[in-house]
């Protein structure tokens, strides 16, 4: 589904991302792990054509993302709060995204019913603008909006951060169900437990390079913990 070849990004002479080849097949739950500055957000931004690669290309369903806009109809994402429109209410925001993805109001309303638990009564019908919601609630809105319109690729940067424990557990369930429907899900996380639970495949980035590419199994969590604590143990 997604292929990156020879991909690199250089800022002021520093290479922040360098991926020779990465292939993500359709329907995979793909997790990206790495310390701060490893290049996770850079990779997602390149995938969404928000920044330009220094070398190489990313193909989303064989479409070169930096050359055509054709990937937009089947790709959706939530990276950070710059994906929210602060002066809309959550409902208006959902309807707006819905219209962009050819879903009418009724579609959106029925779509939203499945998230009633997740929203916990704090989002729908409160007559509040998005900018006045708490960080956690903003994140919920962003994530749910990214699921509107049955996208084939969903990209979520740090979806678990800022969420309360209950919501984290709900989100994990949600993401697992999503991949069963054949959606390709890309997430990044600092939480090794969450990511091993949700993702079928985990790639570890370190200063822009892929240092591990693991099919998730029972041993994965230990392997990751060993990897990230190696410097401390010495």
């Amino acid at each position, binding site marked *: 589904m997604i292929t990156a070849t020879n991909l690199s990004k250089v800022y002021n002479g520093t290479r922040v991302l360098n991926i020779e080849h990465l292939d993500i097949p359709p329907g995979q739950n793909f997790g990206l792990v790495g310390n701060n500055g490893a290049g996770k957000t850079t990779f997602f931004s390149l995938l969404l054509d928000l*920044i330009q690669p220094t070398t190489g290309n990313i193909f989303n369903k064989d479409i070169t993302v930096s050359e055509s806009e054709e990937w937009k109809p089947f790709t959706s994402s939530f990276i950070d709060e710059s994906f929210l*429109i*602060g002066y809309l209410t959550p409902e208006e925001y959902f309807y707006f995204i819905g*219209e962009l993805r050819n879903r009418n109001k009724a579609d959106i309303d029925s779509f939203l019913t499945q998230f009633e638990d997740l929203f916990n009564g704090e989002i729908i019908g409160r007559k*509040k603008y998005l900018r006045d919601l708490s960080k956690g609630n903003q994140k919920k809105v962003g994530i749910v909006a990214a699921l509107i319109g049955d996208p084939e690729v969903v990209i979520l940067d740090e979806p678990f951060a800022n969420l309360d424990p209950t919501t984290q557990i709900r989100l994990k369930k949600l993401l697992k169900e999503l991949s069963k429907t054949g959606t390709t899900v890309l997430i990044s996380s600092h939480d090794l437990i969450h990511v091993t639970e949700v993702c079928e495949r985990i790639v570890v980035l370190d200063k822009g390079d892929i240092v591990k590419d693991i099919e998730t199994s029972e041993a994965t969590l230990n392997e990751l913990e060993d990897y990230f604590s190696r410097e401390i143990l010495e």
Partner: protein
Amino acid sequence: MFGKFIWLEWKSFFRSASLGKSLGLKIFMIFLALYFSAMFLFFGIALYPMLKEFYPEADPLQVVNRFALIYFVLELVFRFMLQTLPVLDIKPLMTFPIRKRKVVNFVLLKSLYSFYNILPLFLIIPFGVFCIVKGGYGYLNMLGWMLGVYSITLCVNFINFIIKKRFTENLKALIPLVIGAGVLALLDYLEIFQITAYFGELLQLIVQNPYLGFIPLILVIFLFKWNQLNLEGKFYLDAHLKGRNKKANTREFGWTRKFGSIAPFLQQDLKLIWRNKRPKTTIYLSFIFLAYGLIFYPNDTYQEMPAFFVFVGIFITGIFMINFGQFVPSWDASYYPMIMAQNISMRQYLASKMGLITFSVVVLAILSTPYVYFGWNILLLNIACALYNMGVNIPVLLYAGSFNKKRIDLDKSPFMNYQGTGASQWLVGLPLLLIPIFFFWILNKFINYEIAVGFLAGLGIMGLVLRPSLLTFLVRRYRKRKYVMIQGFKEKGE
């Protein structure tokens, strides 16, 4: 401690993302300041001889005292609109072991160093000196007067502080005050209750008993204390968070559906304008500038220069276009990455912006039809100008917009707010106005009025016909600038 605050401000200025622009702006402001200082100084020196010449039998000091109140009221109005109050980002300081009073005092004392407080000195001192040298007043008397008048200026400074703190959130609460001032002004005008005269007599009293000059100074200290208590009371995050939970306005703008594929964006933009302070002001401005024609059309001096009416026509029908259009796409800066990653093609995005602005031109053109009162040719010219705006100026503006990469905070008021303005914004206004004026002037001079009007309208219609290909060109341009814009819009701060 004050040294540390100044150090913080210094860093925040020189490390801000748009240092070059702020620096350029500061230099521009310094020039403005020098200009105004010179003007005030000139006026201060010339005031005494001028009054002597116009009112030979009156004492200049008494005349000045008589008008002093009006001056102070005007000063307050100007300060209210123009003077930005010093702000310190208190949030990071709240948990540190710094006494609140220190922070508050810093903010208040800093306001004293404002240029607006120095300016009146250029008026007061030369005039006072003249009164001593030429008017035969005792120097002690005039020192008392200068102290008194300057103290009142400082009072205005702190009163402005109080008014701003209290009313910026809720401008409507100011209405009673404005009405009160209006009533007093009316009574004064009708010579029923001459408040300006009484105020003048009070100042006269200071001249006679110079020690009374300390009374306004005491008033300054009192106002300082009041402000201090006021601000200390607001030294909580609550004060910021409170009132933010206003009920959201959920107007739907359902009628936009008629516009087909660009409807969601149109709806979006209307909400943008309606719910945010800065874009909302562009609407008010548009209506105010509609009256612009009233200045020019009845005026005989312009009748021989119809080229001037082109300026008015472009301006009236295009004021929203200029005010709103020059900041496309900066209005969407805070969520531009989303617009770029969502299922929106650049073409649709730009087409919707064009649609909105075109719509505004049509509305303003319709609203300007009563100007037919001043003659059919004015109506025809305005329609031609509207066509020109739609066909030519809108694409030009959007092209200029592709140079935008500065974020706009939607919630800030536009008065003296240069946020998001770069050199290109200053320049773009000129061709919008000058090119049609130039064409019109040439044709009107060498052929005739009708051909000149027809030519402008023709250019506009041509632009409308060519719009799809112009759009294609703009899309290419915006796609090229996309990464620079996303990067630039991320940078917050001044």
